[in-house]
Structure formats: C-alpha cells, structure tokens
C-alpha cells in the first residue's frame, strides 16, 4: 500500500450521479452528510464538478436518456475515479429490469468497483460500502 493510496483514502471526494433513480438513495446519500452520519469526518466530501471527483456514487437503474450523458460524464472524470453503485437499481436494475427505458446494467457500461445493494441502502450501509472501497484501494 503506497502513500498515494493512503492519501486518496483519507480524502475521497465523491460526485453524485443519478441515472434514473427514485430519489431514495439520493436522499440517503445526502443523509450521510448530515449530522447523524457526517461522513466529512472521514474526509469524504460531496462535490459539484466531476473534475474534482475521486469516486462517483451512482444511483438508479440506467435510463436510456441518461446512459449517453452518463458515459460522457464518466469519461470526463479524472482518473483514478471509482464507481460505487448505490442501491439495488444500479446493481441489478431492480424491478425496472423489464422497462423499455432502462437499457443496460450499470456494470455493462462502466466498470463498477463497489456495489451497495438495498432499496435504499441505509446510510450505515453506504458508509460500510465506502469503507470497503477504501479497503479495496488499500489492498491493491
């Protein structure tokens, strides 16, 4: 485990991208920042521009219209950029699997590093997921 990874794990800036979600995971992500969970104490910050992102939190089943845009957004992220699938929707497309407007699973489109299932996952689960991501970065 190099110094670079150590630094990266201590200051993970996340960008939130919703690609056709029901808002639940999005609120729970925001919940993570709020007083009860406060992920800022781990150095995790929610940022506005993809250019500053170290990780992308993806929520929602991949919508046909969002797909193209999301791929562009991912291509614009500085590397290394991790992808965290938050909620069952990006993990498995959930109950929207048969819909005409959800075309592909998330990991068919971009590489996903961590899956956090749940509808919605609790903030605790999200924090665990991010910790797992940190473990994963550290192990490499």
């Amino acid at each position: 485990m190099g110094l670079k990874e150590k630094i990266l794990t201590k200051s993970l800036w996340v960008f939130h991208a919703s690609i056709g979600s029901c808002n639940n995971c999005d609120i729970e992500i925001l919940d993570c920042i709020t007083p009860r969970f406060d992920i800022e104490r781990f150095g995790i910050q929610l940022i506005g521009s993809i250019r500053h992102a170290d990780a992308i939190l993806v929520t929602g089943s991949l919508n046909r219209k969002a797909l193209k845009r999301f791929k562009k957004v991912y291509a614009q992220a500085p590397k290394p950029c991790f992808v965290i699938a938050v909620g069952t929707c990006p993990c498995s497309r959930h109950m929207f699997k048969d819909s005409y407007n959800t075309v592909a699973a998330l990991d068919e489109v971009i590489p996903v590093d961590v899956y956090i299932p749940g509808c919605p996952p609790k903030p605790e689960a999200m924090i665990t997921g991010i910790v797992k991501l940190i473990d994963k970065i550290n192990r490499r």
Partner: protein
Amino acid sequence: MSKRKIVPIGPYHPLQEEPEFFKLIVEGERVVDLEVDIGYNHRGIEKLAEAKHWDQITFLVERICGICSTSHPFAYCLAVEDLLKIDIPERAHYIRMIIDELQRLHSHLLWLGLAGHFIGYNTIWMWAWKAREPILDMFELISGNRQNYAMMKIGGVRRDMKKEDYQVLRKTIKELYPTLQLFQKAIEDDPVIQTRTKGVGILKKEDALSIAVVGPTARASGVNIDVRRDDPYAFYDKLHWSVITCREGDIYAKVIVRILEMFESCSLIEQCLDKIPDGAIEAEVRDIPPGEGIGRVEAPRGECIHYIRSDGTNRPIRHKIRAPSFVNVASNLVTVPGYTISDAAITLAAVDPCYCCTERSAVFLKTGEKILTGDDLIKLSIQKTENLKKDYGL
C-alpha cells in the same frame, strides 16, 4: 444573427439530486427564458405496472419517488378501493393517516433543508435534516424502514402499529414543535433569507390556475386547494385542521406554507393517536373485478392522482399516474424567467420538484487476484476510459 445565450443547468448538477436539464436563456445575469428537458429519470413505470400483480404494484409505485413514497401507494390503494367499492377498517385509515402525515413532515423538513442548501445556507440544511432524523426513526419503528415504508396494501395496511409505539411517537411529535418554531422564527426574522426569497419566483394566481399547479405551490399562490379537505379520504374530514394559504406566490410564501403545514401535520398525528381505535387493519380483498377507479391523495407536493382500469385479472390494463411534480415543474417555465441565475436555483427547487415523480416513471466486493499498485490502478482506469471513448467516438 446573434447566438442564443445559454446557461445550462444539468443534467448532472448538484442543484438537484436527480438528473434534469434546464437551459436558462440569459441576458447577463437575468434569465429571460427557460427550456426544460426532462426524462433522465423515466423508467416506464406505467408500462411496467401493466405487467405486475395488483399487490406488487403497491411496491412499484412506492419506488416512483422516494420522498413521497407513501403517497403513491396510498393513492393507488384508494383507486383500487374506489374500483372495489369496499370499506376498510377504521384502524387502517388512522394508520394510513399517521404514515401520510409523518411523511409530509419528513418531506417538508427535507425540502426546507435542501432549500437552505440551495441558497448556500448549509446550517439550515444540517439543522433541518437533524430534526428530520427522529421522524425517520419513527418510520423505522412503525414500518421497519427509513424510506419505502411498504405500509399500504389494497384493503388496509400491511403492518399494525404497536400500542407501545404511540407514546414514543407522541413524544417525538411533541419534541418536534419547538424545533419547528425555531425554524419558523429563524426564517421569519432573518433579513438575508427574506431578501433571497421575497419577491422572487412569483407565480401569479392566474398562472397557477392555468398550469393547474397543486399542493403548497398552488396554496402559496392563493389557490385554496387541498385534496384532504376537498375530497376527503381516510378520516381527514373527521379531524380538525386548516388549509394554509398565502397570497404572494413567491418563494418565501412557499417556505411559510410548508412550515405552517408541518404544524398542522403534527397536530393531525396527535389527533390520530388520540382517536385511533383497536381492531382489524385490513379488509379482505379476494378478486379485483373489471372496472375503473380513481384515487387521489394530497402528497407533500400536492395532489397525486392515480387512475386504474381492471379487466378482472390480477393485473391492471392501464395504470395512469399523475404525480404532483409533473404540473409543478411546468410552473418553472413561468416563475424562472425575469429573475437572476442565482434565483433560478432556488426557484427551480421551490416547487419541491421530484423528477422521478414527474417521469414516473450486504456489500459485494470483487476481490482481484492480482495486487495492483496505485499507478497500475490509474493506468487501468485510464485505459478503461480510453476504450470507452473509442467505443463511443468521444
């Protein structure tokens, strides 16, 4: 010919949690026109509902929107019960109302926080969300979930409330009053908030009527509508409460309407807890006969209306959902132009938009065998991106 001057907002924009695309056509800081491009959240729920069991649809419509995740099932159940023409037990009605009002509290607090966030007032955000956590705890207590409560069922409710929980709920609501009063005072007294919100994003009454906006958005513009009073479902006609309206139609009015509504919700929950009888929590429903039904409830964002049509099987042949945001978001076309870009952010958020509504539409870890260093990781992900770019011709 001069080009159109556009400031894009979205689709991936921190303004809102969901993707949506606004084109602000500007002259300097002033917005002169607005184009709305939605559909980034469209999941085809109406079509999906046609292939789902009546009982499954309650879960499906719950996932239309995470914030009003009980209004949609509620409206759907009312629609089916309208079709069935059955009466459901009193206790089920009261539990439904408690859940509905708790959800309204949580949604309004959430909006209040986010509105604070959008005008850069993060303290309000944190405080409001801190006040919201006990409500989520109540949900967890009653239904076992923080979001997506899965309480509604055709013919009643899915879970009963325990007697012990009444006291806890009562206590939580009681403790909420001072917090709400704090917010009310903070917002009514703060001159800076008032300069940011007063006289901004005004929705005039005639526009409100023409666009047919609903909920707090309409009530802030002086349109006195509330489904709970006009077309009472459950036992809203048996409880004492009032409909809050403001005349101004600006963002400040919307804030005030929502804050005052929270007091009403608290009082409604307390009344429900006083009146709730013992008894069954669901009526037996065996078959859905052919027919059609309409159910509507007052979601936190306004009137939520579901239309269903059955052919006698265990799936609907048409399920139409009109979420409140669908009409409320359209009101942005009127409210945003004429103000500045800074105002656009809060104005767009002021209707409490919910694009997922509008468009109805244990951690796994891949353990790699190969140990990669950070540089390899970077290389790998750059390579991935390159491949992607090649694939899509970027």
